């Protein structure tokens, strides 16, 4: 691992802890009945979103599927707008009409937030098409889950992205379970990084629980894509601590399996150790934690105080 300046370590920690604590508070609001429907938490996978996000420039675009809270916050959307979307309020990023799975921000080049598994992959490929069409120098970061990699449209996208040399990095977030189906039960081949080999798309694997490993792998892959070489696939080995959604008790895996990952590979524990090694005092870490807690508490407060949409909103935003 290369040496990171202390400020960078603190930044990485703060952003990952922001996602962790945000999602924990979302779970609390869900359990209290303020959030409803399907709500997919990102706890455990923070290093993936943060490691990618550090490589995203203002020219680039991002797209993901329904486990999107962390991604949209790291893209720059205020946590209070994300939390208010979860509570279905007018102050939400989609005015309360999208909910957990459907959040977007054109301003931040964040194109969803999609509820249909696999559908965001061709859309992301279309964002990359637009980068190339306009010659704007941007690339698309398209997240794909280990469940989505078995969808046919993913391979249709790989084919055209390679054929047309589109600037896109497909980031496979392999958290090992497609809802309740372990990867070995759903994927005929479990090395997902080579799923593009039939289309001449190079692939790479990295430890998605270690933010430094993610950062460095994404940097290398993004550079390849930026240099006009066409698409690339990066598979990140990660893990979600909670069920697939808030409605899932996750009985398809053992408590021991989850605990072992939390003890040995937790991305936040790992970076805390690095911060200590770098000599960052405990008090500074505490300060960052308190800042994050204040941000999330403010978001939760806003999300409960923001008004519910007026009835007149029912028919707005249907057509332009």
């Amino acid at each position, binding site marked *: 691992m290369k040496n990171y300046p202390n400020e960078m370590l603190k930044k990485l920690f703060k952003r990952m802890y922001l996602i962790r604590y945000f999602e924990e508070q979302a779970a609390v609001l869900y359990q209290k009945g303020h959030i409803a429907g399907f709500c997919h938490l990102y706890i455990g996978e923070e290093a993936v979103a943060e490691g990618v996000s550090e490589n995203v420039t203002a020219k680039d675009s991002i797209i993901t599927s329904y486990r999107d809270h962390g991604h949209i916050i790291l893209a720059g959307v205020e946590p209070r707008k994300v939390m208010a979307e979860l509570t279905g309020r007018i102050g939400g990023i989609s005015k309360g009409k999208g909910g957990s799975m459907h959040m*977007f921000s054109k301003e931040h080049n964040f194109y*969803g937030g999609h509820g249909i598994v696999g559908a965001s992959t*061709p859309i992301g490929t279309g964002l990359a098409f637009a980068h190339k069409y306009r010659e704007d120098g941007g690339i698309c970061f398209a997240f794909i889950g280990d469940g989505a990699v078995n969808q046919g449209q993913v391979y249709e996208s790989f084919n055209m992205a390679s054929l047309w040399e589109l600037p896109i990095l497909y980031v496979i977030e392999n958290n090992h379970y497609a809802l309740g189906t372990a990867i070995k039960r759903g994927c005929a081949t479990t090395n997902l990084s080579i799923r593009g080999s039939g289309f001449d798309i190079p692939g790479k694997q990295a430890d998605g629980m270690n933010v430094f490993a993610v950062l460095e792998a994404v940097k290398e892959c993004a550079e390849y894509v930026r240099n006009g070489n066409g698409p690339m696939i990066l598979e990140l080995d990660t893990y979600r601590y909670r069920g697939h959604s808030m409605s899932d008790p996750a009985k398809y895996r053992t408590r021991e399996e989850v605990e072992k990952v939390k003890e040995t590979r937790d991305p936040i524990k790992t970076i805390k150790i690095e911060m200590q090694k770098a000599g960052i005092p405990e008090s500074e870490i505490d300060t960052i934690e308190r800042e994050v807690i204040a941000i999330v508490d403010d978001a939760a407060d806003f999300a409960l105080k923001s008004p519910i949409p007026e009835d007149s909103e029912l028919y707005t935003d249907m*057509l332009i």
Partner: protein
Amino acid sequence: MGLKNIAVREALRDAMAEEMRRDPNVFLMGEEVAEYNGSYKVSMGLLDEFGPKRVIDTPITEMGFSGIGVGAAYAGLRPIVEFMSFNFAMQAIDQIINSASKVLYMSGGDIKCPIVFRGANGPSMRLAAQHSQCYASWYGHCPGMKVVAPFFADDMKGLLKASIRDENPVVFLENELLYGMKFDVPEDDDYLVEVGKARVVRQGKDVTLVSFSYGMKYLMDAKDALTDAGIDPEIIDLRTIRPLDIDTILESLKKTNRLVVVEQGLPFAGIASEIAMQVMEKGFDLLDAPVLRVTAEDVHVPYAERLEQISIPNTQKILAAVRNVMGK
């Protein structure tokens, strides 16, 4: 303004070419649209004029290229996605409905999706079940987009141009049998027809006949038989399925008080069903008789020539329905 007599396929090509000249963000993608000049020769000459960057041959991969079109539209381009047949768009319908039509609403108005999905729809000749279905009511069912299905070449041109300029997703239904039919079209590079407005094709006082797309051909074919029988029909071409111009139908019913709807599609939950319902809701007192419909028979389109012929609307069926609704 002068008129020129051109085929529907040329009117569609002119519409695309003019809009591509006008706006560099407009591009065409689909199977065989470029080097082959379109599987029905609708995109004839576009590759030569605009080059491979803007006229793009895709692999046979409807879901994938529809999704790519949607993504490009999110990013602010204005794709025209051609389906060789809307029967193949079944492979892509998730991208059309879930990704294109819903994004504006789901994003609280933040992401728009200005895209046109166009291609042949409905029965042709002897293509059998998997290449012959009419999807007007499938797409018409869904809010968040517009559905256009013209008949005359001038409407094809004016409405396709308007659809390309529209900020919303548009499903533009053509018909293989129409591509070669010739009509007069204004000689005007800026000829636009407003989406969502029906066209009164023939004024009459006895009965209102409504159809769209190739269904209008059945009405035009039946027109003489009707007048020979002493019936004076008012004929309305919907041109747009969604938003539906129910007001033009109601206005006509004030005169005729009788309505027959003709469509190429299936009867169950079809466009005729919707029109009958809306007329009952909004103009029940205008009716002197129940609304009748002439649609495809409630079967898959058969291959055998005789069976295919009797499965679709024709002059005899229309005449029978008109006589029935008029109590003659």
